[in-house]
């Protein structure tokens, strides 16, 4: 330490002979303690300005360059997000890894639960759609049976010409029964849909179906398998022979497309209620 105190003083004097005024010298000699502060500040100012190229300045500049470089590199590498883990120690890394594993596990569980929930919702909505579809299908089927919707398909047309008015309701009823037994799915007679509750009775010269009076010729439009329906009507002793015995003319015609478009209003039963629900 003692040799420091001599040398800088020497150099300062040697380098700055003109800039160091005489007055501070005298003051420093007179009062050493306050002079130290004053000369320190002055030294700082003189060191900063004007710039001088000296060995000491260059060496310090080189070292400070290294310091600034290291500082900037360290700060930059520390502030990089991806290299935040680079300086971490092994136990810290293990802890971070454990936390990440836990977090992954939690998120994985959550994902599994959500997927399960989604599957349940999807299958339940699928089930609801399937139920709706089946219900609609059933409604169509029942509508055909109940006569609330029109139907079309292969079948036969049976025309009964009865110029003498000898055909009676029971004969037509027999024809309807025979057609039903042969697998008829939808029947209409002269614009009246024949359903489960249809009744026929004689009225004057004609026949009334469910209270609707119809007159000859009676035209049955029947949807079913034509190969079954026609033989069922034509069997010996069957409907056709019985009617022809009454002087009526019966023609049965197969057709690939029969349209049954006579409709019945859907009636809500007054007393009967579904027992399934």
């Amino acid at each position: 330490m003692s040799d420091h105190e001599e040398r800088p003083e020497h150099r300062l004097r040697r380098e700055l002979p003109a800039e160091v005024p005489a007055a501070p010298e005298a003051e420093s000699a007179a009062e050493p303690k306050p002079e130290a502060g004053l000369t320190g500040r002055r030294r700082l100012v003189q060191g900063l300005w004007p710039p001088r190229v000296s060995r000491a300045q260059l060496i310090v500049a080189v070292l400070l360059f290294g310091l600034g470089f290291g500082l900037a590199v360290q700060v930059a590498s520390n502030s990089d997000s991806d290299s935040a883990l680079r300086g971490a120690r092994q136990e810290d890394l293990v802890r971070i890894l454990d936390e990440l594993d836990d977090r992954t596990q939690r998120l994985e569980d959550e994902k599994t639960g959500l997927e399960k929930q989604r599957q349940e919702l999807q299958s339940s909505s699928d089930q609801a759609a399937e139920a709706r579809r089946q219900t609609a299908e059933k409604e169509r089927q029942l509508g055909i049976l109940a006569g609330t919707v029109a139907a079309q398909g292969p079948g036969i047309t049976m025309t009964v010409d009865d110029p003498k008015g000898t055909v009676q309701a029971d004969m037509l009823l027999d024809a309807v029964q025979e057609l039903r037994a042969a697998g008829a799915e939808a029947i209409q007679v002269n614009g009246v849909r024949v359903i489960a509750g249809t009744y026929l009775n004689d009225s004057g010269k004609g026949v009334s179906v469910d209270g609707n009076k119809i007159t000859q010729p009676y035209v049955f439009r029947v949807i079913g398998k034509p190969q079954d329906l026609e033989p069922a009507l034509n069997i010996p002793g069957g409907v056709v022979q019985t009617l022809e015995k009454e002087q009526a003319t019966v023609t049965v015609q197969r057709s690939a497309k029969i349209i049954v478009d006579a409709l019945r209003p859907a009636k809500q039963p007054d007393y009967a209620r579904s027992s399934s629900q």
Partner: protein
Amino acid sequence: MIAVLGLVVGVVAGLLVRPEVPAVVEPYLPIAVVAALDAVFGGLRAMLDGIFDDKVFVVSFLSNVVVAALIVFLGDKLGVGSQLSTGVVVVLGIRIFSNAAAIRRHVFRA
């Protein structure tokens, strides 16, 4: 002045170049920077005291850096690296504070 310029140029160069820190020196760089800061503050104080010597500064700067890195290296080998690093930083921090106090007394006379 040139010394201050050197510091500024170093910071700018470090920010611009952004070199990859080699894995070997990675744990030592922060401690070395702190040790170098300590040496710089000591040198500044010596300058204000009028006892600055470039040779002393160079030696103290380099030895500070080397010793700090050595301590961290030794601590890592002994398995107490983090604790020793903390200790080194605390000691250097105390020295920096005391040097800064001396500089402050010189500059502000308070």
